[in-house]
C-alpha cells in the first residue's frame, strides 16, 4: 500500500507544519488579531492578505492565531480522552464480570445522552476557558474509545501465548505489561487521532454557535462573526469564512490521514496485498 503510506506521511508533514505555525506564527505577526488596524470590511491587499473584519481587525492574523487554539484543544482533549479510555477500557477488560458490567453500563449511558446539547449546555454555563472546554469535550468523547480498548484487552487476553504464560504461573501484572500491552497500546494511536479530530470540529461548532472565547481569535469564532456580520451576503465570505473553514478541513484531514495509515499498518490481515 504505497499510496496509503505516502498519504500518511503527507498528513504527518502537514501536522508538523501546522504545529510550527501554531507555536511560532503568532510571534511573527503585526497584530494579536484583536487590534483595530484597518478599515472595517477592508478587502484583501498585498499588505493585508485576507483583509479585515467588521471591526477592522486583521483576518490573516486571526487565522494564524486560530491554529494555536484548535491544535491546543485537540491535544488536550486527545490526551485526556485517550487516558480515560485506556483506564476505563483496561479496567473493564480485566476486572471481575460484575465490575466490568457496571463500567460498561456507564459507558452505554454516556453514549446514549444527547451529546451536543449537553456540550452546549455545559459551555454556556461554565464559560469559554480553554481548560473548561477541553474538560467538557473530553468528558463526552472518551466513552466510545473505552469500549474499543476493552474489546482489545479481551481479545489480547484470549490469545494463545498469553494463555500459555498464564498456565505457567505468570502474574497478572507481568501478563499485562509483557504480553497484553503490546497488543492494546497500538489501539490507542487511532483513538488519540480520532478524539483529536472530534475535538477540533466540536470546539469550532461551539464557537460557531457563539459560545467560544470572545477574547481569543479562533477559526470557529471567525466563521461565527462572518455569518453574523453578513460576510456571506457579499464577496467577503471568500476571505472571511472560507479560509478558517479550509484550515479546519486541512487540520482534521491531516489527522485522519495519519490515523488511517497507522490503522492500515497495524492490521496484519491487510498487509499481504500491499
Amino acid at each position: 500500500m504505497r499510496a496509503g503510506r505516502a498519504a500518511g506521511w503527507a498528513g504527518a508533514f502537514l501536522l508538523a507544519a501546522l504545529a510550527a505555525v501554531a507555536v511560532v506564527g503568532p510571534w511573527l505577526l503585526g497584530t494579536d488579531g484583536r487590534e483595530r488596524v484597518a478599515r472595517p470590511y477592508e478587502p484583501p491587499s498585498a499588505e493585508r492578505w485576507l483583509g479585515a473584519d467588521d471591526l477592522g481587525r486583521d483576518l490573516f492574523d486571526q487565522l494564524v492565531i486560530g491554529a494555536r487554539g484548535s491544535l491546543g484543544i485537540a491535544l488536550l482533549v486527545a490526551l485526556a480522552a485517550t487516558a480515560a479510555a485506556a483506564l476505563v477500557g483496561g479496567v473493564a477488560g480485566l476486572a471481575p464480570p460484575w465490575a466490568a458490567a457496571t463500567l460498561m453500563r456507564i459507558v452505554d449511558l454516556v453514549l446514549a445522552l444527547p451529546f451536543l446539547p449537553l456540550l452546549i449546555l455545559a459551555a454556556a454555563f461554565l464559560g469559554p476557558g480553554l481548560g473548561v472546554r477541553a474538560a467538557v469535550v473530553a468528558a463526552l468523547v472518551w466513552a466510545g474509545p473505552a469500549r474499543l480498548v476493552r474489546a482489545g484487552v479481551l481479545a489480547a487476553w484470549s490469545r494463545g501465548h498469553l494463555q500459555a504464560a498464564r498456565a505457567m504461573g505468570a502474574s497478572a501484572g507481568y501478563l499485562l505489561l509483557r504480553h497484553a500491552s503490546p497488543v492494546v497500546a497500538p489501539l490507542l494511536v487511532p483513538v488519540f487521532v480520532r478524539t483529536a479530530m472530534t475535538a477540533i470540529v466540536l470546539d469550532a461548532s461551539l464557537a460557531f454557535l457563539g459560545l467560544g472565547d470572545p477574547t481569543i481569535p479562533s477559526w470557529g469564532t471567525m466563521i461565527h462573526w462572518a455569518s453574523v456580520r453578513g460576510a456571506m451576503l457579499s464577496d467577503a465570505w471568500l476571505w472571511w469564512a472560507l479560509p478558517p473553514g479550509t484550515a479546519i478541513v486541512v487540520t482534521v484531514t491531516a489527522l485522519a490521514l495519519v490515523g488511517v495509515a497507522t490503522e492500515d499498518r497495524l492490521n496484519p490481515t491487510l498487509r499481504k496485498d500491499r
Partner: protein
Amino acid sequence: MTVASRPAPARIGLARAALGRAGGYVAVFAVALTITFLLPRALPGGPLRTLGGGEVGDLDPAARAKVVAAYGLDQPLHVQFGRYLRDLIRLDLGESFNGGRPVVEAIREALPWTLLLVGTSVLLTAAVGVLLGVIAGLRRGRGKGNLLLAGVLLFDAAPAFWVGMLCILFFGVHLGVLPTFGVTTAGHTGLAAVGDVASHLVLPVGVLVATGIGQFFLVTRFSVASALHAPHVEHAHARGIPHRRVVARHLLRPALLPVHTQLMMELGWLVGGALVVETVFAYPGLGRLTFDAIQGRDYPTMQGTFLTLTVTVLVMNALADLTYPLLDPRIRARGRS
C-alpha cells in the same frame, strides 16, 4: 448505544436478554431524568438572572420573592424533583420561562420536524456510507478506491455548519434552486406541500449525510478489505459463484455487523448533532428549541427538550436492537433452540 454491547451467553434465553435490555433502557432513562433535572440547577448563572426575559437580579426583594415562589424555586430540591416527576407523568413539562408557553406544546411542534430530519439522515448516512465503503474496500489501494477514501475523509473533516453555510450560498443564493431555511413555504397544498417539505429537507439532510458518513464508510471499507482474501470468500469464488453475489453475501453481509455497532454508538451523536444544522438552516426542530432554551436559561424548556432527545435516542436504540437478529443469523438460531 445502550445495552446490546454484551452478547448474552447461549444458555440464557432471548427473553431474559430482552428483559435485561429493557432494564438497561429504564436505567438510562432514570439517570437522564436526574441529570436533566439537576444540571441546570447545579450550574452557575441560575434562572433568576434571566427569568421572564430580563434581568431579575435587580428586582426589589418582594417582587423577587414572588417570582421565585411562582416557579417553585424556593422549595428544597427533593420537593422540586418530586413535583417535576409528578408533572412529568401527566405529561406536564411546565411552562417556558420565556413567554409562559407550555413546553409540551413547543416540543409537540418541533419533534416531528426533528424526527423527519434525523430519521432520514440516519438511514441515508448508514446506507450511503456502507455502499461507498464496499466500493472502496473492493478497490483498496487502487486509484478509484483511494480517490473515494480521500473524498470521504475531506467531507468527514469539514464542520457541518461550515458546509451548510457554503451550501446555502451556492445552492440557495447563486443557483437559487433550493430553499435554504425553514421547513415550508406558504401557499402549497396536497402533493405540492409534500414536495415543498421535501425540497426544504434536501440541503440539511445532504449536509448531515455528507459530513456524517465517515465512520460508516471506514468501518465497511475495513471489513470488506480484510475479508477480501478470507478462505470462505476464495472458496465462494472457486465454486464459481458470480462476483456480485460473493460481494453481497460473503463480504457485505458480515460487514454489516460492525456497521450496526457503529450506528448504535453514534445515535446519541447523530440525534444531538442535528442541532448545528438546524441552527444554520433555521429548521424549527428540537435542536434549535434546545439551543434557544439554553441561551435564554429557560429551564423547563431545556429539561423538556433534553428528555425528549434522550428518549428519541433510546427509542432509535431499541429499534436498532430489534433489527440486529435480522443481520446476525447466530442470534436467530439461538432464539429458535
